[in-house]
C-alpha cells in the first residue's frame, strides 16, 4: 500500500511535466485545427538548450527558462509562418506530415551536434532528495511541479483575463466567426503556435532534469503526448491536464505493482478502452459534421 501511495505522489508530480507539453499541443490543435507532431522534438530541443546554457554559461536550469522560453516562442512563430501557414489544401493531414518533417530536421540536427549519447542534467536539486517517511523524492520533482502550476496558472489567466485570451478562445470555438468579428486569426494562430512551443521548452527542461534523454527520445515523447491529448479530448485544456496527470499515475502505479516494462502499455490499453466507449475522449466534443 505504502509503495502505491508513493507511486501516486511521484506520478502526480511528474505528470505536471507532461501536462505542460500536452497543453502546448492541445492549444495549437484547438486554435489551428492542426496536430503538431513535432512537439516531441521541440521538447527535446528545449531540453538541449537548457543543458547548453547550464554547461557553457553556468545558468541555472530554471533561470535559463527566461532565455529558452522566449527563444522557443520566436522559433514557434517562425515555424508557423514558414511551414504551417502556406498549407492551403488538406490542412489537417499535410500539417501532420509537415510537422513530422520538422521533427526529423530537429532530430537530425541535434544528433549531429550532440551525438546520440544519453544526456543527464545535474544540479543540486537533481542530486539531492527530500525524505518523507521512508520515501525519498528528488527536489527537482517538486520544483518541476511548482513550475507546471505557475505556468498553467499563467496560461489560465492569459486565456481568461486578457483581450488576447478572449480572441484566442473565440478562434478555438469558431475560426470563421472569429474572423468575421474582426479578430486577426492568422496573428492569433502564430502567437498560439509560439506559446505551444514555449511550453515545450519549459516541459523539455523539466523532463531533461528528471530523466536522461537523447535526440531519439522524441518518438517516445510524442507517442505519449498524442495519447494524452486523445484521452483528454482533442482541443480540451482541462482534458489535457487530467489525462496528463492520470497517465503518469497509472504508469507509476503499474511499474511498482506489476513491472516497469509494462507501465506505458497499460496506459495505452486504457486509452483504447476509453476510446471504445467514448470516441471523442474524456472531455472532447464529437468530431461530427461541421456546418
Amino acid at each position: 500500500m505504502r509503495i502505491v501511495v508513493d507511486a501516486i505522489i511521484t506520478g502526480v508530480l511528474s505528470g505536471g511535466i507532461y501536462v505542460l507539453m500536452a497543453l502546448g499541443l492541445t492549444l495549437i490543435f484547438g486554435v489551428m485545427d492542426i496536430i503538431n507532431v513535432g512537439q516531441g522534438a521541440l521538447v527535446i530541443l528545449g531540453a538541449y538548450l537548457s543543458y547548453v546554457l547550464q554547461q557553457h554559461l553556468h545558468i541555472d536550469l530554471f533561470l535559463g527558462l527566461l532565455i529558452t522560453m522566449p527563444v522557443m516562442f520566436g522559433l514557434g512563430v517562425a515555424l508557423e509562418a514558414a511551414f504551417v501557414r502556406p498549407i492551403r489544401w488538406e490542412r489537417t493531414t499535410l500539417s501532420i506530415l509537415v510537422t513530422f518533417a520538422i521533427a526529423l530536421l530537429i532530430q537530425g540536427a541535434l544528433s549531429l551536434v550532440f551525438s546520440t549519447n544519453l544526456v543527464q542534467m545535474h544540479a543540486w536539486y537533481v542530486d539531492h532528495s527530500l525524505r518523507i517517511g521512508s520515501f525519498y523524492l528528488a527536489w527537482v520533482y517538486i520544483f518541476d511541479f511548482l513550475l507546471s502550476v505557475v505556468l498553467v496558472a499563467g496560461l489560465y489567466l492569459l486565456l481568461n483575463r486578457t483581450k488576447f485570451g478572449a480572441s484566442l478562445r473565440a478562434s478555438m470555438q469558431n475560426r470563421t466567426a472569429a474572423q468575421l468579428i474582426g479578430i486577426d486569426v492568422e496573428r492569433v494562430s502564430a502567437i498560439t503556435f509560439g506559446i505551444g512551443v514555449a511550453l515545450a521548452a519549459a516541459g523539455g527542461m523539466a523532463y531533461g532534469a528528471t530523466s536522461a534523454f537523447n535526440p531519439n527520445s522524441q518518438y517516445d515523447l510524442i507517442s505519449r503526448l498524442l495519447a494524452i491529448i486523445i484521452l483528454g479530448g482533442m482541443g480540451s485544456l482541462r482534458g489535457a491536464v487530467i489525462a496528463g496527470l492520470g497517465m503518469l499515475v497509472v504508469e507509476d502505479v503499474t511499474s511498482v505493482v506489476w513491472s516497469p516494462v509494462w507501465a506505458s502499455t497499460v496506459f495505452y490499453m486504457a486509452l483504447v478502452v476509453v476510446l471504445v466507449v467514448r470516441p471523442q475522449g474524456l472531455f472532447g466534443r464529437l468530431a461530427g459534421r461541421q456546418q
Partner: protein
Amino acid sequence: MKALRPVLLLVLLALAVVFPLLFPNPAVDTVAVLTVLFATAVTAWNAFSGYSGYISIGHAAFFGIGSYAVAILCQDWHVPGGYLPFLLLPVAGLIAVVFAVPMGWVALRTRKHTFVILTIAMFFIMQLMAFNLRGLTNGSRGMSLPIPTHWSGAFYDLPFYYVGLALLLLALAVSWWIRNSKYGLGLLAIRDDEDRARGLGVRTGAFKLTAFVIAAFFFGMVGGLHAYFVESIFPAFAFDPLIDLMVALMAFLGGLGTLAGPVLGAVILEPAQQYFTIWFSRPGYYLMIYGALFLVIILLLPQGIIPALRARFTRSEALAGPVRHTEGGDGLAGAALAAEGDAERGGGA
C-alpha cells in the same frame, strides 16, 4: 492517347520484368527489390487512405507484424532458406489481418484528426510489444531468418524481386478494382462527406474497415518479404516510424488517391533514399535531408505529380482537380462525377 495506354502499360510491365536481367548488379538490384516492396506498400496504403481520406500513419505496425510472423514461423517450423519462406507470406498477411480487424475497429470509431494520431499511438504500442514480449520476439536482441545459402551473387536478389513484383501487380489490381467498383465509389463518398454518405445508405463502418484491413494484409506480406530479404529483424527496425512517413510521402508525391501515383512516388523516392543512406551515412545528415525533402515536396507540390500533370493536360480542369475542392457543394455527386471522369480517362492511371 487512349489507344496508346495499353501499349504503354505493357511496355512498362516488360521493363519491370526484365529490369534485373538488364542490370545484373547486386547493388542496383537490391535497390530495385526495396523499390518494388515500397511500391506495393504505398499502393495498398493508398487504397485505404487515399480513397477514404482516413490518413493512417500506423500501417507500418502491420509491416512489423508481418516481419515477425515470418521470422517466428520460420524458427518454429524450422523452415530452411530457399523458396519455402515465400509461401509463408500470405500467412504473414493473414496474421496482420487478425491484428488489423480489432485495431481498425477501434481506430475507425474516431474521425479524421483523432484517427491519424490514434494510428500513430497504435504503431508505438506494437513496437513496445515487440520489445517487451521477449518469449515471442526475443526482445531487443532481434531474430534472424533462414538464409538461402545456395543463391549467390547476382542471382540472390532475383527471387525477391519477382515475388515483390507479383505482390505489386496484385496490389495494383486490387487498387484498380476498388477505384472502379461501387465499393470504391462508397470510399470516395466517405472521403468527401461521411455523414451524407451514411445518410445515402453507404455502410461506412464496414467500408472503411475493409479497406483498412486490405491495406494491412499487403503490409503484412511486404513486411514478411522484407524481413526475409534483410535476414534479421529488430524491434526498432521492423517497427520503424520512418516507414510510415516514407509511405505517406511517396503517396503524396505521386498523387494521393490516384492509381499510378503511389508507384511513381516509390520509384522516385526509394532509390533517392538509398542514395542518401549510402552517401550521408551519419544518421543526423540523413534525417535532415529527409526532413528538408519532405518539406519541399509538401509545400511546393502538395497535390502530387499525377494530379498536377493531369490538371495541366486536361481541358476540363473542374473535373481534374481533387474532388475535395467541391467542399460545401455537392460532395457526393462530385465524387461520382469525378469517378466517372476518371473512368472515361481509363481509370485515372
